[in-house]
């Protein structure tokens, strides 16, 4: 009797301890998740707070729509950041145009076509590319790609949107490629079997069954690659030419948001309109990236509902 009692109490002591650690762990997990949110909100808040000061001195319309970026510390300074916004949009689009077909192609190749051996060799190599510092991409771009582009186009300088987009494409290739690869691989075999059993060729199976089923993964891979392209600085600044002018061709030096920030942020005093204007560019990048993410979530939710 005594013994069973003590076992019971031991049991319940153990029970409580387990329940307690269970709860503590759950709270720890929730806390961790909230830490992430706090980090993001602090970043957005800090960038926004600093950036918004720009508009004490600069008209909002001038900032966004004027193409005249001529900052300085006297009365004649103008802060038209339109060039950089246009540059970033063009660069991102161009990068996607080049990289999406190749990256998704590689993903299809890896997930659907390549023999197992080859897959297992190529995947780690692609993963490895993610770890190569952007400085190395930048210098390879500067020393090999830019002169090459100049030669091909017969221009004096090879710097510009094309060179930057090519470097960025290479940089986002592993990101888009591997995540798409994973999501294609995750499409259950039964869908492929169903398609083949209907008499579909491999091409038809991939295009009409596999890719649509992996659509969400591929779209988020592209968005992820896109945000990487949007935010990349160290490599872009070496090959874009860094001239605040609207690019009339793909091989004319121009500037984008990130390259302009990194070129100038170090050289301007913290408490100056110029600095605020640069911070607002960073803030804009952030907002655009966040909007993209929300946009993707909405698309995904909608397709889920359907």
């Amino acid at each position: 009797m005594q013994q069973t009692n003590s076992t019971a109490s031991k049991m319940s002591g153990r029970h409580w301890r387990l329940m307690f650690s269970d709860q503590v762990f759950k709270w720890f997990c929730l806390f961790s998740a909230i830490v992430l949110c706090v980090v993001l909100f602090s970043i957005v808040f800090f960038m926004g707070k600093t950036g918004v000061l720009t508009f004490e001195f600069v008209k909002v319309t001038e900032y966004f729509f004027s193409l005249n970026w001529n900052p300085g510390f006297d009365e004649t300074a103008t802060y038209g950041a339109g060039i950089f916004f246009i540059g970033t949009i063009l660069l991102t689009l161009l990068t996607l145009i080049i990289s999406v077909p190749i990256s998704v192609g590689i993903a299809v190749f890896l997930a659907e076509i390549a023999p197992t051996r080859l897959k297992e060799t190529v995947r780690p190599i692609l993963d490895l590319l993610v770890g190569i510092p952007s400085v190395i991409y930048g210098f390879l771009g500067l020393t090999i790609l830019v002169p090459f582009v100049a030669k091909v186009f017969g221009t004096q300088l090879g710097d510009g949107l094309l060179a930057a987009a090519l470097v960025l494409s290479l940089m986002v290739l592993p990101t888009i490629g591997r995540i798409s690869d994973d999501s294609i691989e995750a499409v259950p075999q039964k869908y492929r079997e169903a398609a083949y059993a209907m008499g579909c060729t491999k091409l038809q199976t991939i295009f009409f069954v596999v890719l649509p089923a992996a659509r969400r993964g591929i779209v988020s891979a592209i968005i992820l690659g896109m945000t990487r392209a949007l935010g990349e600085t160290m490599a872009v600044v070496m090959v874009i030419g860094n001239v605040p002018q609207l690019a009339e061709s793909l091989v004319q030096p121009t500037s984008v948001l990130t390259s302009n920030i990194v070129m100038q942020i170090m050289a301007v005093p913290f408490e100056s309109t110029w600095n605020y204007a640069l911070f607002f560019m960073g803030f804009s990048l952030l907002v655009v990236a966040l909007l993209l993410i929300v946009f993707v979530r909405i698309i995904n939710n909608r397709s889920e509902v359907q």
Partner: protein
Amino acid sequence: MQNLKDFKASKLAKIFNQFFMVSMWVLGIITVFFVLLLLFLILKDGLPYVTWDFVIGLPSEIDAGGGIGPMLLNSFYVTILSLLVSIPISLGAGIYLAEYAPDNKLTSTIRVCVEGLSSVPSIVFGLIGIALFVEYFQIGLTIIGASLSLAMLNLPLLTRVSEESIRAVPHSYREGSYALGATKLQTIFKVVIPVAMRGLITGLSLVAGRAFGESAVIILAGGVNASAEMWDFSLFSPGGTLAVHLWYVQSEAIVPDAKEIAHKSAAVLLFVVLAINLLFRIPLWWMERKMK
């Protein structure tokens, strides 16, 4: 109505299919070739000349023959510290999202935050690092500042990987564990995480490789130079890593062998990232062999 019975697969579809297969192979081979070429370009000018003295030697500002010891050490140190900070948080957040998160506003907010955080340009983390550690705490450009800023960069990717690999564990495993009377905590640690380990480690190696090669954050939050002596583990030493040193050597260094140092540093950097990828996989192979 047409009689589908007599329909044959169209010649065109077959030709398209053939063409597609060939072009995919071509694309695959070109890409693999291109990537290998890239790796070769980076390694060929550096790796053959890398010596042990270079790897652990002190850098020099005047004479040729300086090493990268303190920077390389910093790279490891900063990477490991940043992972030590980010792993518990990311794993916690990943577990929360995969195991606990109810389907409500808070959860979707957290999800948007994780994805949003992963889209923050790395230079912004650097700016935040400066604002926080240099301006606010006034500790200057240090290892701790670099590590914590880098940890912020690691968080979203690591969280994503944790969540995905935990989610990928089939539900039947959990049910098996609950059926034996295990609590949720026990189930997570004894059943779910071991099964998810493969995904977790692959993700971790990706994040570690990326952290190892990150430069924009470190330049701003850790500075461009490392401690002047080897094996300096002080958290308040300058936090320049090998990736930053590479940038420094390529842009501003005066030493006559700057170019060689840059090539060798790039080779070492790539080699280490490769090694990280391999090293992380060894325990996996081992575990899988044991399971068989």
